[in-house]
């Protein structure tokens, strides 16, 4: 089983468009993991059936029992997150601020504070319209710990791929380089970087590449909207070359893609030309994966 993670650093470069196209092309061979749990979008194109769902509890939340609380103020003094609030002598916890460390609950002299499991999202295991099995999630607004939920989505996807002896897991990652990105990288076999020719995308690409370096994962690159800025395209190519990142495709901007997406379809379904581009990408990814195998 090979795990392919689609990343970019900058948001909106086309990660999900590429990942969903690959999912359509791979069909039942690939398990899909939408690890951009903050802003999950794969379901809009792959239209999974949301067949199985379960609540996800990521961490805990402090709750003050006002009957037992003596308003001594120790929790307020010790909380580093400013999560304890008082209104009319009554102490309570601001759930947006509480990071679930449990310190207050340990030190409360009258044990008036309980740590309760905190529902931070919902996990789904579905079948997509392309016959993939798909693991995806929704997060409660403003929730903590999206990294934990990402890890859970990946674990489930691996389990399914293992049980069914499926060769691929396609992981749609999140923008940035913080905990959800690190969680999506751990254990991956290949990273596909989707970038675009702009100062911002190039800046973010450089930073996320440094994070990927630590994981020593084979990385290939796609330049999306490649006709927007030729100068930046050559800067990206120089960077790819320096980093040993093989460019597997460049895709010109197409106003059609947005229209096709609005109809819930992927790039691979938006006409012959786009179809050919995405097929070639999928073929090259599969080839690169075989190369990793022979390197070993």
């Amino acid at each position, binding site marked *: 089983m090979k795990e392919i993670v689609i990343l970019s650093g900058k948001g909106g470069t086309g990660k999900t468009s590429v990942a969903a196209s690959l999912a359509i092309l791979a069909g039942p061979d690939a398990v899909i993991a939408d690890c951009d749990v903050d802003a999950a979008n794969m379901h809009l194109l792959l239209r999974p059936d949301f067949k199985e769902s379960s609540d996800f509890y990521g961490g805990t939340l402090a709750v003050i029992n006002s009957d037992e609380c003596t308003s001594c103020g120790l929790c307020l003094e010790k909380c580093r997150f400013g999560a304890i609030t008082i209104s009319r002598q009554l102490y309570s916890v601001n759930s947006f601020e509480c*990071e679930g460390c449990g310190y207050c609950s340990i030190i409360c002299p009258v044990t008036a504070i309980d740590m309760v499991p905190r529902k931070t999202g919902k996990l789904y295991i579905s079948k997509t319209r392309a016959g993939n099995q798909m693991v995806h999630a929704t997060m409660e607004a403003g929730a903590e710990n999206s990294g934990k939920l990402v890890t859970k989505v990946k674990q489930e996807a691996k389990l399914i791929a293992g049980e069914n002896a499926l060769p691929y897991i396609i992981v749609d990652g999140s923008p940035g380089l913080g905990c959800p990105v690190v969680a999506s990288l751990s254990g991956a076999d290949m990273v596909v970087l989707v970038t675009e020719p702009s100062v911002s995308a190039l800046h973010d690409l450089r930073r996320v590449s440094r994070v990927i370096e630590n994981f020593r994962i084979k990385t290939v690159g796609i330049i999306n909207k490649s006709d927007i800025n030729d100068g930046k395209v050559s800067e990206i190519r120089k960077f790819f070359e320096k980093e040993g990142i093989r460019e597997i495709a460049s895709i010109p901007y197409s106003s059609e893609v947005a229209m096709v997406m609005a109809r819930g379809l992927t790039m691979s379904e938006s006409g012959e030309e786009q179809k050919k581009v995405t097929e070639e990408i999928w073929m090259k990814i599969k080839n690169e994966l075989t190369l990793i195998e022979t390197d070993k």
Partner: protein
Amino acid sequence: MRLPELNMTKNKTVKIAVASGKGGTGKTFLAVNLASLLSETSPVLLADLDVEEPNSALFIDGTEGQVYEKYRLIPQWDEKRCVICDICSRSCNYHAVVRLGDVIAVFDKLCHSCHACSELCPYDALPMIRHKIGEVRQIYSGRLTLAEGRLNTGEEQSVPLIDQLHKMVGCEIEPAPVQIFDCPPGTSCPVVAAVKKTDYAILVTEPTPFGLNDLSIAAETVKQLGIPAGVVINRYGIGDNAVEDWCNNEGVEVLARIPYDREIAVMTSEGLLAYNHVEYLRPLLKDIFEIVTKRIDSL
């Protein structure tokens, strides 16, 4: 054309967050163009809180001010003092402090700096020490001050840096009457940290199913924080009308529609401020600011 003096709100500072849910919809584009335009008539602070991938500075030419190194505190095991009582590892909810035989291991990345292990240790064997997480730098360009937070690559938690940058405004960072906060994408804890101290959130979206889906989650997040919000539809004309319909149904104000314009895309890809070149952007940005200040005033 010279802009008329902006109608400043009753001597009060206005703090505007620019957020989105989905990445790449144009948060930074809007934040830098709006901040720069407004700085023609008033001191403006632009704070880049997208500390994982800060991009605002790519658009602002100016002189570099002081750079502040930023730290958070994490425990460091003092072997000599420790008696392996195990209170620390039992008090850590993040498994960041773990007893491995007669060794206490600290995993920096998992630590949330709650101080429980350190303060509960009866032998002072886990003093909190500084751990560098990133930097805040300032760039001055006319009446615009850019304060950029930049997380070190390899650091996973952006919230402590976002919180610290917020706290610097009014201390190390001059608090201008207009403050614009360029926020991280997503809808989880970094966004909450970035948006929570602001008066109003401009949610930038695009008219696609992705834009709408993420807009609806972001709108819910700011609503729960009690922050009023309006929507800017960027790349108007691509995709469909679903975002517009959603805003109508939910009673969320559409502040502006910025057409998909290849010239804007090209300017922005070069790191240029598009409002200097694309004529209709000036009045459009000014309108956004006027509506937002009106909404803040009416609170």
